[in-house]
């Protein structure tokens, strides 16, 4: 994760940190981001019907747009911001899934659709907590692949952007992504076998 100077730079550049003021610690910055992401999600719902899914990546973009004046920030900072936001987004989502599971004791974890084209509950569903654990397992095997998943899936980055951020070739990112995608696919395959459908 990018260091605290980045956060400071971003906050300073956006005027949220006045000159001479002590920079907030990373935790504070992240918790602000966390709150912001939740708030943005709420904002979206006012625009969207409940039957329309929200893309977390869009939330990340939105958060970035709000917190940062893009024209002032070099790409690398923007990328780092989005890398942080991607991680926070993942956190927000997993926390929510956990909370939901806790409140619905015995009812099992929330399963949601595999495709935006279907109504929730209509298609094959995956378990966010399980996915989170699977990504952690992937991280233990190959950290960069897990990071690629985070950047692309939660951060909305393109292959090219992720490649630049990770300082690897786009081909590498692509290979990482396909491997991660297939590997995670095999982990989820067994229990959902009967309801699998092509994309």
């Amino acid at each position, binding site marked *: 994760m990018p260091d605290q100077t980045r956060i400071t730079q971003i906050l300073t550049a956006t005027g949220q940190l006045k000159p001479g003021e002590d920079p907030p610690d990373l935790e504070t910055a992240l918790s602000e981001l966390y709150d912001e992401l939740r708030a943005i999600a709420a904002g979206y719902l006012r625009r969207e019907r*409940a039957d329309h899914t*929200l893309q977390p*990546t869009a939330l990340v*973009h939105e958060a970035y747009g709000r917190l940062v004046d893009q024209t002032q920030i070099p790409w690398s900072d923007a990328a780092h911001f989005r890398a942080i936001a991607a991680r926070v987004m993942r956190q927000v989502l997993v926390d*929510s899934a956990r909370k939901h599971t806790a409140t619905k004791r015995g009812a099992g974890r929330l399963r949601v659709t595999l495709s935006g084209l279907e109504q929730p509950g209509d298609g094959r569903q995956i378990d966010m907590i399980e996915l989170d654990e699977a990504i952690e397992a992937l991280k233990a095997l190959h950290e960069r692949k897990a990071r690629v998943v985070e950047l692309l899936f939660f951060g909305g980055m393109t292959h090219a952007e992720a490649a630049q951020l990770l300082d690897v070739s786009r081909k590498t990112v692509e290979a990482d992504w396909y491997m991660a995608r297939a590997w995670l696919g095999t982990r989820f395959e067994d229990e959902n076998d009967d309801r699998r459908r092509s994309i």
Partner: protein
Amino acid sequence: MTDADRFDRLSELFEAARAVPQSKRAEFLTGACADDPVLREEVESLLEAHEKASPLDSDTPGVIAGRIAEELETDQVPMPTMLGRYRVVRQIGEGGMGAVYEATQQDPDRTVAIKVIKLGMDTRQVVARFEHERQALAIMDHPCIARVFDGGMSETGRPFFVMEHVQGQAMTRYADEHRLGTRARLALVTQVCYAIQHAHQKGVIHRDIKPSNVLVTELDGTPTPKVIDFGIAKATDAGFAPASLITLQGQAVGTPAHMAPEQAGAVTQDVDTRADVYSLGVLLYELLTGTTPFDQREIESKGLAEMLRVIREDDPERPSTRLSSMGDQATRVAAQRDSDEPTLRSQLAGDLDWIVMKCLEKDRENRYDSAAALADDIVRYLANEPVMARPPSAGYRFRKYVKRNRGQVVAGFLTLGLLLLAVVGTTSGMIWALSERERAEVAAIAEAQAKVKAYENAEQAKIDADIARELSDFFVMDVLSAVNPARTENRDLTVREALEQAADRIDGRFDGRPEVETNIQNALGFLFSRLGDPGQAEVHQRRLVELAEITDGPGSIEVARTMHGVVGTLAATGRHSEAIEMTLEQLAILEHHDGPEAEEWRIRGRGNLGALYTRAGKPDQAVPYLEASLEAKKTMLGETHPSTLAALNNLAAVYSALGRPERALELAGLAHQGRRELLGEGDPRTYVSLINLAGALVRLGRDSEAIERLTPALQSGTERLGSDHPTVVDLGNALASAFRSAGREGDAEQLYRSNLMVQNESDPERLQPRTLEAMRGLAQTLSADARHAEAEPFARAALEGARSAYPPGNVSIEDTLRVWVRTLLELGQLDDAERVLRDEHERNIAAYGADDVRSSKSERALSEFREARTEAESAQVEPIPVSP
């Protein structure tokens, strides 16, 4: 092996296997995981998973985010009765951005449409932005633009916009329901373009052009488009594009497919009028094909990240291609356009494809620079005038060429070939075979043009035009459109890959139309050979021979003509005996034909045989062909023609190699004189003839004459061409050799060494044969000076170099081998010498078998050496007989 290591191994195999075609995967896996069935199973299940849905394709996070939002915000929006001073009558629409109401205004008394934005958080900002734009919106006055009257904030704090109430249908729907033909659709779009242009001139960008924002109403029975929602996108856009994607997603059209790539950026670029040009292109695409450039369902299923990537990076299919790929649906689409599928497709192919694709360029610099420019081009199309859409690219120029010269297809292909080569850069090293082939191509152009002139009747012209179209489709669509230099840094690779891919698609595609395939194979053969890929070139050239047998019959002149290309490729790759065999076959066919064309090919074939025998190290067999070829050239082209002079020069070299220096001297003298007059003293070719001349003089023992002529030439050549020019290096080697022959070892050594120095500094690849010659010459010079130990490493290096540069048994290898063996003998290293000879023999056997002439030659050398050695050794050990 740790889990991580195993995972890495798995990743590698998975990636490698993905690259292997499905049909060969099993075989690949068997090879790769032979010792590890578990690993194989894992790779297989990954490959299976690769084809299926993965949790990463899901929008689970989106659903959870939605639930989070739901938990935070649950209020519903009831229909308001009043919005500012407007009385709401009824709800007329509901989109992701908000509800649309019909409302009445009292002063002036009119019905308006009011769009209420469901933004919640940004209300103040939206209203402020709208206020900012209002000025501009107010001055827009165009019959095809719905007026925006007002904006405000509702009691519940939501921003709304008051617009002219337009009763109409979304443009695409109107066009389909009224079965408007392509031209009528285009006419409608031009109106929209001019309306957008009007707005742009007032400084307003729409940013959200799509069918549902372009309504069609009928004014006095005439369909009139009206663009609605001007300025709203800007006012509501939070300034960050992906946010507005969500807005779009929620709407009836529900697709970000109308959005320009720069609007889909991670960091928003400044969006200018050309974003609207892009969206107009999408609208046009939809009107023409019934689909958006990127399939809505398909990109939506990929999630936002992928969606953005597609918009920014992927090139959509051309409209005509899309129509071909949509299957049954195409029939319906065509019917809605009051047409049938083939007609519609041919209507789209070409100009309309280009117009649309120019709008959809990723880089806005490459789009039309204004909406008016797009409209103008559509009007040009409607008036059957040439459109401006086509970029000045190779493909475009080629296509234009084909259109202009419907019949001159072969010539057109060469143009394409040359253009392609201009893109990739020509291959260096114009060797004999290549220039011969080029001549053949020039002949092909002439031939094609002659054929074209013969096509007098209309039917033939039509067939020809069909061929032209298919060919240009194949090359422009399949090859050139795949060449996108921006995609890869290695442009050469891209062109080659594109060609290879295109070549893969030929199989069976042109069955029953050998004329078409002939032209394509011809071009492919030519291009691959120019790209330095003789292997691929040969495949296409051989197919060309087969096709000639089909079209013109076995034994036809055409068959002989096509063989020429194969011969050139075989010669270029050093497969001389195969080339000779084919040339003999070619000449046998030509024996059965009369007329000037057959005669011309006979001459060319004989010339080839001469050169091929020379290169194959059989100068004695080459001589009669070269003499015949020279005579023919003298008669047909004249004594002083460059080609005649080249034949003279080559023949001189052959006589020199055959040990006939008198004849060599005579011919080289003529060649040199002719070239000096024709090309001038300082032309490399003139120097080459001089080198041959000097070589003959040296062989005749006239060393001083050779030195006299070469010394000033070396000096002037160095001045004119530079010391590292190959011909200048040749001059240096020739002079050094003359010095050596004259017993001036000191001068020879100095010159060889300086030549070697030059070559070390410059490109070693280019000068290799010359480097080898200098090394060998230096070894000989040192040996002549009895400095054998010094000579030996140069001789050895020269042989090593020759072995890597030439095929086994080559004359240069033989010569160098001889020098080295002699040096070893002088040094008394008899075992080493024998080993070298044995090694050489083994190489020849491995390359050609025991029966080959080269193998028997090296065998003879080896056995002679052994005999001599045994004799010498037995002579030494035999006790001196004591006389009684």
